[in-house]
């Protein structure tokens, strides 16, 4: 039987940090928490999707099946999703599509990672045909290089200041103070940010997110199934965006040396990050004015400001004013990153798009405790996966 409505019946996380354990440990813990939250047994799940990471030969140790084996082989259908930072959203998209098509009723989506110390870097070996390897060898261009370029553009185009960037960190640190799953739970001042060393001008260490271990999981099911569960707080999945860019992509992005050329083909009016949100809004039949809360991808403080505009929470060039006026703070017009964001969590690549969805689920149920956005009924996540993976999920009550 086909289903129009897919709901999030359960959400769970393993606290993020630098724990040094196998990634499946975090995934299983997050999965068990999400299953308990849904009131569903693992053996009732008919489809499991794992968000994949790439490491050590087997990609993510073939994540979907790794989690399935760790939970105990149950005969469930399985899939694994690789979309870099967008892996979790793509995994949700697959699970949701199977449920809508009537091929599954209850799906478990899990992402988890164990991250090495320091800069994210290519694995060893000479790979002259790999742009991700070449950018380090030929340019010394780390991920913060690209964040620095975007931040400098905001300063030049819109009059952003490094103080604005610091205020994003201050806001997110305060939001995440009481989040039990966050790694960093400590107030940060603009002076703290200013006192931290420059990594990639104009960005300082406290402007850039850390790498973390962590896990997140959600249970998806049809609305009919949720009614049978007697779920009194159903959160509906309204839209999932997994769009690729439209040629020519004229913003330079990791790991590229150059943009596409606009000399022959006129660029779309909607740049890639704008298109990610636009597709989610279109699928949900909702718009930015409907959004009560957003979880966006603050790889750098300055990048969070870009997302305000990409999600159309404010006009282009107005993100600094939106921030300064307190609109993105809890209590403001559209609170952004009430979880604390990557500023408080750090990156655990296959888990982070799912962690955003977990946070919105708790926000929309009114279960977010000290970081609750009052009256939140519609939430949007936004994220971008390396190599052209869009990621945005819209949930509503």
């Amino acid at each position, binding site marked *: 039987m086909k289903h129009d409505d897919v709901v999030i019946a359960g959400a769970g996380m393993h606290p993020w940090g630098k724990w040094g354990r196998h990634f499946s440990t975090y995934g299983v813990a997050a999965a068990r928490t999400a299953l308990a939250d849904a009131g569903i047994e693992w053996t009732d799940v008919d489809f499991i999707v794992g968000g994949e990471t790439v490491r050590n030969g087997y990609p993510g140790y073939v994540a979907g099946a790794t989690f399935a084996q760790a939970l105990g082989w149950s005969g469930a259908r399985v899939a694994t999703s690789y979309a870099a930072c967008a892996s979790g959203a793509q995994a949700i998209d697959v699970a949701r599509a199977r449920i809508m098509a009537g091929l599954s009723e209850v799906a478990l989506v899990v992402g988890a990672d164990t991250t090495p110390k*320091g*800069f994210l*870097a*290519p694995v*060893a070996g*000479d790979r*002259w*045909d790999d742009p991700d*390897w*070449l*950018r*380090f*060898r*030929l*340019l*010394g*261009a*780390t991920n*913060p*290089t690209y964040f*620095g*370029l*975007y*931040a*400098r*553009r905001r300063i*030049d*185009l819109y009059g952003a200041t490094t103080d604005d960037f610091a205020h994003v960190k201050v806001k997110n640190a305060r939001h995440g103070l009481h989040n039990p799953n966050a790694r960093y739970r400590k107030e940060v001042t603009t002076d703290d940010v200013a006192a931290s*060393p*420059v*990594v*990639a*001008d*104009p*960005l300082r260490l406290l402007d850039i997110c850390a790498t973390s271990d962590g896990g997140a999981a959600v249970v998806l099911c049809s609305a009919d199934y949720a009614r049978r569960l007697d779920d009194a707080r159903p959160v509906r999945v309204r839209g999932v965006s997994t769009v690729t860019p439209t*040629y*020519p992509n*004229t913003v*330079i992005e990791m790991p*590229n*040396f*150059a*943009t*596409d*050329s*606009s*000399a*022959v*083909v006129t660029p779309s009016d909607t740049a890639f990050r704008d298109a990610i949100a636009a597709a989610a809004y279109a699928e949900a039949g909702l718009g930015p004015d409907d959004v009560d809360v957003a979880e966006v991808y603050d790889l750098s403080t300055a990048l969070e400001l870009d997302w305000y505009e990409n999600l159309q929470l404010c006009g282009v060039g107005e993100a600094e004013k939106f921030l300064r006026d307190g609109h993105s703070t809890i209590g403001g017009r559209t609170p952004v990153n009430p979880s604390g964001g990557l500023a408080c969590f750090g990156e655990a690549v296959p888990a982070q798009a799912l962690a955003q969805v977990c946070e919105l689920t708790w926000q929309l149920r009114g279960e977010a405790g000290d970081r609750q956005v009052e009256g939140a009924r519609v939430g949007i996540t936004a994220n971008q996966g390396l190599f052209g993976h869009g990621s945005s999920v819209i949930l509503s009550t």
Partner: protein
Amino acid sequence: MSQTASRTPIPAVDGWFELEPEPALIGARCVECSTVVFPPPSESTPCPNPRCASDRFESHRLATTGTIWSYTDAQYQPPPPYIPTTDPYEPFALAAVDLADDGLIVLGQVAEGFGVDDLAVGMQVTLVIETLYSDDQHDHLMWRWRPEGDQS
């Protein structure tokens, strides 16, 4: 960076730039739709224009001057495969440069002796070739962006 007569200069990557008759990036242009691509595609790579099915390109020299789209620097030593050239590490700047006629933006390190304080968005820069790193036999050459003098 010391240079000795015994080392031969060679490009740090094959076929992406040339030194003669003057330094220039070498891209490719689709023979069907004229779309420009940089870095040059490897053999049998299709044209990136989704409405073009060609996989035939001709060599195309990119403009050697452009304007800074944005810039930053690397205050921490990048991890391998980056090869540090000094000990202790000395930061370097990078710029993304808009090559208007070719309709694309190309990232590169900024020429030796220039840092972020010397740069501004919109500033004109020129392509130069400098030594990226050296080993016993070779100076490995790479393109860099040099701010033009007399900026107003």
